[in-house]
């Protein structure tokens, strides 16, 4: 079911008509509210601070590249971008690998306690991950993991697992049983079936959970704030926050830094937006 519905929009595509002016007026209004502040930040990065103070709502005159150049030539920015990337990639790989393995068992094996195990994982959706942040910090400190990438990656994998399993399980169970039988007749074990047939077939769902995990990790603030005291390990959100509280008078610089920090997540999401909505359809019954 889930696999089908994720693909149906492209299958049932009809020629798309222009709509009424009212529809466009409303859609434009909604879009303006959503994106105007973001556009303002990006354009504001091309102004100077005196320009911004003199006329907060104006356009750049003249356009100044200096703010962006300053941020991009700063070693801190690249170091933080690198840290964010390592942590986000580590988290994404971990979530997808552990999530697929667990969801595969929960979808394709019959055994006593299966539903119990599933409920056990879904309980994580009820757990406010933020609530456990203090004891989590203490535990990571006792494990001497503080100030390492693992201190962020491992808990982030754990936080993301429940949603990942909830999204993946319906996808993996929707693969027809005949395929499993055919693979068995061809001599593939169940693990071979997972590797050669399930993974390629469930790619849309894998992309969905991967992108969700990546964006969540890229944007994470509270956990890195507590466990990454070492400035050399700071991620971009910490960098943006520090920059903005250190150079409060450099408004233009803050705007440029903020714009550059949000760019990767925006690009990533733009590329994967359709996949995400498709992937969520399996988990949300309309």
């Amino acid at each position, binding site marked *: 079911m889930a696999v089908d519905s994720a693909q149906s929009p492209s299958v049932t595509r009809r020629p798309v008509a222009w709509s009424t002016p009212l*529809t466009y007026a409303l859609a434009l209004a909604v879009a303006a509210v*959503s994106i105007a502040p973001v556009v303002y930040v990006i354009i504001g990065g091309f102004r100077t601070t005196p320009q911004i103070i003199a006329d907060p709502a104006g356009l750049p005159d003249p356009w100044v590249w200096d703010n962006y150049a300053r941020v991009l030539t700063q070693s801190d920015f690249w170091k933080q971008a690198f840290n964010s990337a390592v942590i986000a990639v580590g988290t994404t790989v971990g979530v997808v690998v*552990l999530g697929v393995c667990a969801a595969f*068992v929960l979808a394709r094996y019959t055994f006593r306690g299966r539903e119990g195990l599933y*409920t056990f994982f879904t309980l994580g959706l009820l757990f406010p991950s933020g609530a456990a942040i203090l004891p989590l910090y203490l535990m990571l400190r006792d494990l001497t993991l503080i100030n390492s990438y693992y201190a962020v990656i491992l808990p982030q994998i754990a936080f993301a697992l429940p949603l990942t399993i909830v999204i993946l399980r319906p996808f993996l169970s929707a693969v027809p049983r005949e395929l499993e039988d055919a693979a068995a007749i061809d001599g593939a074990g169940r693990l071979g079936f997972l590797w050669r047939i399930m993974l390629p077939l469930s790619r849309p769902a894998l992309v969905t959970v991967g992108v969700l995990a990546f964006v969540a990790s890229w944007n994470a603030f509270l956990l890195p704030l507590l466990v990454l005291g070492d400035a050399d390990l700071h991620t971009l*959100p910490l960098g943006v926050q520090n920059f903005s509280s250190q150079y409060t008078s450099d408004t233009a610089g803050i705007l440029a830094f903020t714009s550059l920090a949000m760019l990767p997540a925006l690009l990533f999401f733009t590329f994967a937006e359709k996949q995400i909505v498709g992937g969520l*359809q399996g988990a949300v019954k309309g």
Partner: protein
Amino acid sequence: MTSTNPTLSPVGGADAPPAGLRPSRRSSVRAAQTRRKWYEIVGLTLPAVIVYVMFVLVPMGFAVYYSLFRWRGIGPPTDYVGFDNYVLAFQDPIFLDALRNNAIIVVGSLVVQGPIALAVALLLNRRFRGRAVFRLIVFVPYVLAEVTAGIMWKLLLTDNGTVDALMRSLGLGSLVRAWLADLDIVIWTMLFVLTWKYVGFAIILLLAGLSNVPPELTEAAAIDGASWWQTQRHVMLPLLGPTFRIWMFLSMIGSLQAFEVIWVTSVPAVRSLGASATMATYMVDNGFFARLWGYGNAVAVILFVISFVVALLFQRFLLRRDIEGAVTGRVN
């Protein structure tokens, strides 16, 4: 339902039973298969279970333990104080302010975001040229980091900043306030920023739910002469019920944990007076930065218990039908 099928799915080529086995051999082969199945089940789920238990469940257990001590975080906790930390929390007016603020955010998010998200989702579910671009734009605030959104709005809302300038140029100058410093207003400013940030998530979920509605239903309604409005009202909205309730659930849990946007947007001094504090910012301020670890953990437990009770009540009374087969339910 999937089921194991010993005859059709021999596990692994090497172990595949040769034809014509005597019954005793066959049963031992079957036992080997069962054993092998359990190895696979345990081997595939164990890593996920370990990480999940270790970093989600175990810390919560420790929180309960630490919360019973007065402890500065150095050496093992020894100064046992029973439930004193909990009593202290409920006697602190700042914490009670934080509780009130969380309540405002929970209710305010539902009341404000719900109708907006429904309207926008129905609008963007219409087929029209350029729809994909509009959908993308509406999700942008949700994809931004909380920190980014927070800093952005902090700059926009600063005294004599862009928002004030815009309001003045629209002739609304008399309505300008100290958005981030006025103790009576700051929580509503926070609610505004949170709404801007998270309404896109509600829209994504509702659009996913809408696209699951079979086209036959809307076509049937059209054949029966229903207008677009009637179709939305009598076909789409009722079918969106489960998705909407799941969103309500996720929104409430998120609102109870609100931290980043408030931490970044509101001035620490305003937060420490309680005007914009939430349970989570109060917990981090007192537990981590003031090094009152026992007390901070008590606040963590309170936050956790409140979230859990809200979640259970909501599940019990509203979500029960939906989660059968949807978020946590059975798979067919």
